[in-house]
């Protein structure tokens, strides 16, 4: 018997719109919306294209690769459910499709409990790739890890 997952799960704003994203994650795919008329990638899920205001958006799987745009190491979490995880890394990834998504960096070298130095595998602009964390039977969270040579 494992301990129940007690951290916040996605508080879905409009299930009709974002269901394909979470369903893709469950299949271990990172999908994004793309506007059919103008061809631009869109994040986060919405009902209208922010570039051309078309309402004709489609879901397209991506390779889940990008670069670490920026990050922060959390030492004092807002939610007590994360207390056991500190220090952990929140980050923004600039996907190769040109959109930035908020996520968590995992599989990096250990971080000190008090102060940096920050490990060498947490560097702005370094290549990262998606991994999937099946946190509950219903929910899978896309996270990212450093791309390792070889």
């Amino acid at each position, binding site marked *: 018997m494992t301990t129940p997952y007690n951290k916040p799960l*996605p508080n879905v704003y409009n299930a009709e719109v974002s269901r394909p994203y979470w369903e893709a994650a469950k299949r271990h795919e990172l999908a994004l919306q793309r506007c059919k008329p103008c061809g631009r990638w869109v994040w986060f899920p919405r009902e209208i294209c922010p570039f051309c205001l078309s309402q004709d958006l489609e879901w397209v799987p991506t390779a889940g690769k990008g670069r670490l745009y920026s990050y*922060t190491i959390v030492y004092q979490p807002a939610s007590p459910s994360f207390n056991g995880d500190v220090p952990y890394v*929140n980050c923004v990834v600039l996907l190769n499709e040109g959109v930035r998504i908020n996520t968590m960096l995992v599989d990096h070298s250990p971080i000190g409990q008090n102060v940096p130095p920050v490990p060498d595998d947490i560097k702005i602009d370094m290549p990262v790739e998606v991994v999937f964390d099946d946190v509950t039977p219903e929910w899978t969270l896309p996270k990212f890890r450093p791309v390792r040579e070889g």
Partner: protein
Amino acid sequence: MAEESLRGEASIIGIGDLPRQRSWPGKSSLGLCAEASKAAIEDAGLQKEHIDALVCIGGAGENAGSLKFYLGLGGNFAIGATMGGTSPLVGLAVASSLVAYGMAKYVLAVYGGGRDEGNPMPRLRQGWSLGQEFEDPYGVYTIEDLTLAMMYNRHMHEFGTTAEQMAAYAVNTRFNALKNPLAVMANEGAITVQDVLNSPMVVEPLHSLECAPLVGGACAFVVSSAENADAAPHRPVYVIGLGASTPGDTPYLKNEGIEYIDPRLTLTPTVWSAKDACEMAGYSARDMDLLQFHDRYPILAAASLEDAGFCKKGEGGAFLAATDTTYKGTLPINTDGGQLSGGRLDAIQGASGAPHLMEAVRQLRGEAGERQVEDANLCMVNMAGDGLSKSSTAILGTDETL
């Protein structure tokens, strides 16, 4: 400047400013707002019967009717002005418009609250916001700390900004706060650069002494037309320029490629709000005698100063480290201790920039006591909100700057 403009048409003739305290036991938010309102009305030499419009700033905007009733105010308008931490200057813009166009004679604007009514911080985002579905599951710290921490790391990466530079600014604001009895850190003593660097990490790279302490309090001001300002008991402070900008929520998720939204995380919307304020005023950064800038974190002040034109983009860290920003200095900034040592006014749904406006008025009146800046005639006030997604800028001046 445009021929039809608000420049010089409105004046702040009264202020009411409560001490910034970590707790206000026994005081309600309405009660604190009422107390500051009373002080502002008296400071303007008026009776409450003179007030013919009320502007409730920040999240309190929804309660404008309640506060009007609570204070027993007459008049017609009771409206909200809400744009996150920048709301006080949006409230100033609304109040200025009402008096300039004859819709009201004396407008009372107020924001405040205690922190004792169930508003614990840190907290997760509440209610609807664009990114929430994709943030809370990742253990995101409060959105503003998270965004600013990421901006800070990106700023260091792109421009070589250092924690030592940011700490130097924090040391100066503490120096200023020691002369401001309203500041929460007024009696906490001086700090050193090493104190800042040794303080615990909150969200790396932000040390705890780079994060403003959260406090309760209230700020109120009375606005009249310029022609009605001469009868006021204190030297009038004129609204010379105003600007505001809201590029949108969750700026760290900005899409690349929307032409009118600059995707750089290190760029603040002060680029636009300060430009508009300067255009209305006919002044530029170099004309300012002193500044009141939103400094919930030093890195926010640094980036905003860059974007307002006080130094080149990316040089805010070096600029702050090389500038004496104390009230005795070459470019005084946040002479009251700012938010960093004065306290971040964090009532329910904050409009945290309000104290910056209070201090600007005190300085331009020449009533800032021991920390008075000599020949203070022109002051830029800058406020930021909701993790880099909003900015407002005002240029305030004495009659010599009209």
